[in-house]
């Protein structure tokens, strides 16, 4: 691929990410961007909830992200899970071949969990293997993003105590971080974030079996990937006066619909879709919440006011509250995000079946070979819909006095 012709933007070094105000580590070229997720079961299972991808998709509404998850349960930097026999050079060849075929622009690399079972003794071998893998991947794209493994979770007896194992995972996390620094690649430390989240909320279950993340875990991981890649939380703020005049708008476009009409009627278009809603119990924990878009309305007559978005009541607050700013957490943008996330999950599921079909033993290929074109068509339809859904659309905001309580 002739990269000179591409409008490539710079990936900044990890060291700069930690600093407040650092620009994001992930930027995209114009048009289509192929993003590959490569790794073990942690990466593989991320595809179904869609949190990681949905958060990335919403950041680039004017680009097309085509995500391919090549994660494989039990895989390691040698590609061990990918073909039969486990000690076969063919497995690494398969990893190389399939990644190359996708012509990736960005590769997220998520290994270390399975290797960590070899403990400290296995560390040098792992570092060597990881570097060998990166040397191959660097030929495909310079934009590699290294993910740490997640932490294991102690779910109580008779499930195992994970203290010792997590010590190993921590060592492997440190090793990956050191590799990232040597090779000047961005690194996302999920391990410590998840450890910390668990410590602060001992009752919050992050995995479904002590080792593979559940929806809570993936939701936190997705949020953290966004954050550590320098994609700072949106601070969406809209300040309007009670007569509908837009006083200021950050991260959102707003214009009065019909200035002649009395009251507040605005055409509002968000810059990005909101983050996907947190699942189950996390949703109730303020510490995990993404900052909500805030709408401030000055000069309202005392009493409760209802904001309706596209005719549907979204939030009710007093004039006083509106004056100091009200967070908007439900509405059509949130619904669109949820639709997008579900669609990403469905699309990934299709891709998964196309890429790792049932009955893919060589002697069945005459029977299933014809399926691939059919899958590709279906995936393409979903990809187009995803691109469509990523773009926020405008909505009509109407603020009206709440009916007085009986």
């Amino acid at each position, binding site marked *: 691929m002739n990269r000179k012709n591409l409008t490539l933007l710079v990936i900044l070094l990890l060291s700069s990410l930690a600093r407040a105000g650092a620009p994001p580590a992930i930027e995209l070229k114009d048009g289509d961007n192929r993003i590959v997720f490569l790794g073990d*079961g942690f990466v*593989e299972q991320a595809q179904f909830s869609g949190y990681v991808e949905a958060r990335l998709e919403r950041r680039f509404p004017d680009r097309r992200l085509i995500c391919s998850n090549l994660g494989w*349960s039990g895989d390691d930097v040698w590609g061990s*899970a990918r073909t039969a026999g486990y000690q076969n050079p063919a497995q690494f060849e398969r990893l190389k071949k399939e990644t190359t075929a996708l012509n990736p622009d960005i590769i997220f690399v998520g290994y270390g969990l399975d290797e960590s079972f070899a403990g400290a003794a296995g560390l040098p071998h792992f570092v060597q293997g990881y570097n060998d893998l990166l040397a191959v991947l660097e030929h495909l794209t310079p934009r590699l993003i290294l993910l740490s493994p997640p932490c294991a979770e102690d779910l109580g007896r008779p*499930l*195992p105590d994970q203290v010792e194992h997590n010590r190993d995972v921590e060592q492997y996390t440190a090793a990956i971080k050191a590799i990232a620094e040597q090779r000047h690649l961005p690194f996302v430390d999920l391990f410590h974030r998840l450890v910390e989240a668990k410590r602060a909320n001992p009752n919050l279950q992050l995995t479904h079996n002590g*080792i593979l993340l559940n929806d809570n875990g993936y939701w936190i991981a997705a949020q953290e990937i966004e954050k550590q890649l320098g994609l700072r939380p949106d601070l969406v703020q809209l300040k309007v006066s009670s007569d509908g005049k837009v006083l200021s708008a950050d991260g959102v476009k707003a214009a009065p619909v019909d200035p002649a009409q009395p009251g507040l009627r605005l055409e509002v278009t968000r810059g990005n879709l909101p983050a996907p809603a947190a699942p189950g119990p996390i949703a109730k924990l303020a510490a995990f919440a993404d900052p909500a878009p805030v709408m401030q309305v000055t000069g309202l007559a005392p009493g409760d006011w209802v904001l309706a978005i596209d005719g549907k009541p979204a939030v009710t607050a007093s004039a006083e509250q509106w004056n100091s700013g009200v967070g908007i957490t439900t509405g059509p943008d949130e619904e669109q995000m949820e639709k997008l996330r579900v669609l990403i999950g469905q699309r990934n599921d299709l891709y998964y079946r196309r890429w790792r*079909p049932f009955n893919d033993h060589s002697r*069945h290929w005459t029977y299933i070979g014809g399926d691939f074109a059919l899958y590709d068509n279906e995936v393409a339809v979903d990809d187009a819909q995803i691109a469509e859904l990523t773009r926020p659309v405008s909505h009509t905001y109407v603020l009206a006095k709440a009916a007085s309580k009986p």
Partner: protein
Amino acid sequence: MMQFRRCRHSSLSSHSFGRLLVLAFALLSFLSPRHAVAQTTAPADDPNSDDPEVERRLLQLPPGFDIQLFASEPLLQRPVSMSFDAQGRMWVLCIPRYPQILPGQDAIDYIAVLEDTQGKGRADKSHIFVSGLRVATGMVPDDAGGAYVGEGDLLLHFKDHTGSGKSDERQIVFSGFGTADTHHTLNTFSWGPDGLLYFNQGWYINSSIETPRGMRRRFGGCIWQLHPDSLALEIYDRSIAVNNTWGRIFDAYGQPIIASAWPADINLVLPDTPLNRDDDSATMVPSLKMTKLAGERHSGLEIISGRHFPPDWQNNLITGSFNSRKVQRFAVQYDADRLSVKELDPLIVSHHNKFRPIDVKMGPDGALYVLDWYNIIIQHNQVNFRDPRRDHEHGRIWRITCKDRPLVPVPQLVDATIPQLLDHLKDPEQWTRLKAARVLAQRDRKEVVAALSRWVSGIVSEQDEHPLLEALWLYQSIDVVEPSLLGRLLHARDPGIRAAATTVLGYWHDRLPDPATLLATQADDQSLRVRLSAVLAAQRVPSSAALESALHALEHPSDAYMAFELQKAAEVLKPYWYPQFQAGQFAFGGNARRLSFALQSIKAPDAVGQLLAMLSAGKIARESQPELLAAVAALGTPQEQDAVLEAVLDTETGKAFSSSDRARLLDALVQSTRSRGTQPSADVKRVSALMSDSDELGLAAIRAVGAWKLEAERAELERISSDESSTPARRQAAIGALVDLAGPATVKHLATLAQAPKPYAARVDAIAGLAAIDTKHGAPLAAELFSEPLPAGGDPSPAFTAFFRRTGGPDLLAAALKSKKPSPDAAKIGTRQLYAAGLSAPALAEALRAGNEATDRQKQFSPAEQQRLVQLAMTQGDPHRGEKIFRSSIGCMQCHSIAGAGGNVAPDLATIGTTAQPDFLVEHLVIPNKSIKDGYIALEVVTNDGDSYTGIRQRETATDLVLRDATHDEIIIPKSTIKRQRSIGTLMPTGLTDSLTDNELADLVRFLSELGKPGPFDVGHVPVARHWLNLTTLPPEFSSLDPDAQGRTLISDAHLTWTRVFSDVAGEVPLSEVAIGSGGHSAVLRCLANVTAGGKCGLLLNSDQGVRLWLDGHPLPLAAIGSLDLAAGTHTLDFLIDLSERKSPALRCELLEVSGSTAHAQWAPVR
């Protein structure tokens, strides 16, 4: 071991009426009380009708049994697995999308829950527990309202929190199971008596599972074991590495038994250990082929237990034999502590074409339920996944009850109190005991423990050992260690219970004070079964003491399994004992036998020195010394190998080993030279003195002279090779050694030997030798030989195969044959050998075919042509003529067998007619490479020497690749000598059927399509001899000898040559196919009987006219054969047949069960 039993009431069929009654299966059913049909078979019934009542009428059961439809479509579509929950409801997994979902299709596979609320044997209530599954292949209810499901790469747990009957949570327990083949994906889910969940995966499945306790990887078949609470996932068994195992039960002692579809077998399982982290199947997995218990294709396995079935059915095994559309029944027994099964008359024989029994389960009412996949097509890879003949809509479950015996009242377990549940542990029904324990395990643990402890102390009678075992398992299920109960049962009266308790000891070892001492006692038990359990349990215990305990079993009688497991124990526990041994901290308490065994077992080259030190210190018992020296030969350095050489050369009376031991050790040294390039450092020339030895030792010495390049012996080798009084074996060894010495002198000598007037056999051997070292020089000499008419008894095969083994050999031979046309006989033999070698050598095939005007059928093989041939076969084809073609013209039996009779490099065809559709058969015969059965893809391996081998991969160890070629030989190729290898498709030659006319091909197809269907081409289970040896070279004096006086010496003469012949489907050897002596009227046939439990056994011949019989070399009066006293072991039967006297054109010999005898015997294959 497979136990054969004659079905007495139908014995007429073989006594006097010959094949007549066998021909007419239906007729036989009417004549024989045992076979009388329960339902009247209306001849008008359509065997393809989708009406369940028609199907029911076409299912034939023994008298006294009823069959009724429990459920069918539309409730069930493509049911694949059924299981009852603790409430007595039947859960059925239905997979209409199997085997492959089409992109864009919805996943609609589902679990239906069926209930028989009226107790009428018919599901009258049903609901869907979960739908939207995608080609799930395994399921078991969790007895708490939910179910575990295997779906592709996922192990799922569906739960029902609200008790609505519908799943409200889907949880991924683990992901990463392989999906390469949906008939191998996770299947056969069941709960063990230990409260653990078991499920299987099959061949080609490549699984990598991330568990909270680490990675679990498995490529190939295995049984998984999951502790659902702790999520401990272990490989319970790897011996099913290459199996499709779709049946598994635990018997009343917790002994796991499996039934497999491929390789077709029922067998016991010797569980693996979590300490075995080695995935090298070749060395760390006991081969289940050590015994072959029952050779039908099985899916589903159940053990009959409970009051509804008659006493003589208790503990019988029931399997679904989906190929032959039977539900089969086997008796289980223990011979010398070893499980064996004996095939009984089938429970169901189907005359309906779609009946496919694939799961069998005892129900809560004590009846037996049979799940019917209901499909014409069962095979996965022979028919397109979307072939319209695949049925996606139907499915049936049948209930089988005994007339005149009451059903068992369905136990109400879910609502029962803890004491009531405990009392159910004494029920005769295994289903009830298992489910009561499962319900108890889910109750409040403290209450259960308290009640269980009281219940156990209330059992004082020694007769009640079995409820105590149930209690022990319940403790294991709830993970409470109970040393006193364990201790009591480790010394139970019943060896089965001692063995079961020993297994539990293995699981509890880390919470018992001194497991090694307990294990040592069990390893010294009087029962082999208990000792074996102890050796298996020791493999779970990571300590040197555990191995020391296990090796107590060395002091007791052993068998193949014990020998394997002892060695495996030493290997698996090596990380725990060997470092301690090396550090001088552990030496098996000075027990030299144990130490020497352990060191030999781990095959560590650095242990050889220690072994030799023990030997020279006189610590090794004499009978163990040859074994030890063989290990030294295989692993030692040249200096260490000197001890072996000295033992070979030692002739001192009273000190020397036997000649055969010395020959074996010498061969071990030669093998080490060939595979590792090592030879003893001492003077090896001394072996030449042994060359004159007339037996095996002399042969080994000749081979060693070659391997060690002892040039000084060349003249002697030349003399032996050209001496006409040398035995063929000596001549061949000498030629082999000359080939090793190589050089122009060898070429010159062999070239002389290869030409007339040297004897034909010597010329063949010389040409084979020449082909190996100077292929170019050998080719014209070979062509010369092949052009000559074949002398009587002459066989040019070795000369052909020697060329096939050389890269470029076939082409050189083809070129030489252009100017020298082969004789018709040589051409036939050469063609056959070429087919057998599986080589694609068109030029040579053409040269051999010179003059053959066969049509090239493959070229004109259009769909219309295929249809025409199918039509022709089904309308005009004659299966009897087809069988003759199968047996003779084109060498089918070279590779294929029918019920084990024939070659074993290609699939056994005993039931091919019930699985393969005629269009598949036609296509496969004409275009063999179109689809190849699992495991029959041939490899071509070229070694560094330029030798080329072709065969099917048998197994692979760390050092060797083992192939099996079309001539049945195993070829062991050291991996270090392999230059390259590649898959070459099937060994079945293209163009094989070119020499057949369309009518002959139609006959052949018709024959194959009848195989396994009820009728004359169903091999059945009558124990008839199918493997024979036939004396090919009867000396001229044979006919003039008095066989009673001379037969014994003659028949045991090692210099005679034998060839294998096989019985036909009906079990007869056609005498027209056997070699006749030069007198023109005598033939000698030999078969082997393997007696596993000694006692009275009988033989039955189709006719004794003209037959004289020897048993183990002693004349056997024909009057006595109905009742023979046979000791355990293998016995040889030799038949001398005078054809001038004999009227019957065939010989058939059957094993009879003698009334009241406890003997068990079976026919053994001959080599």
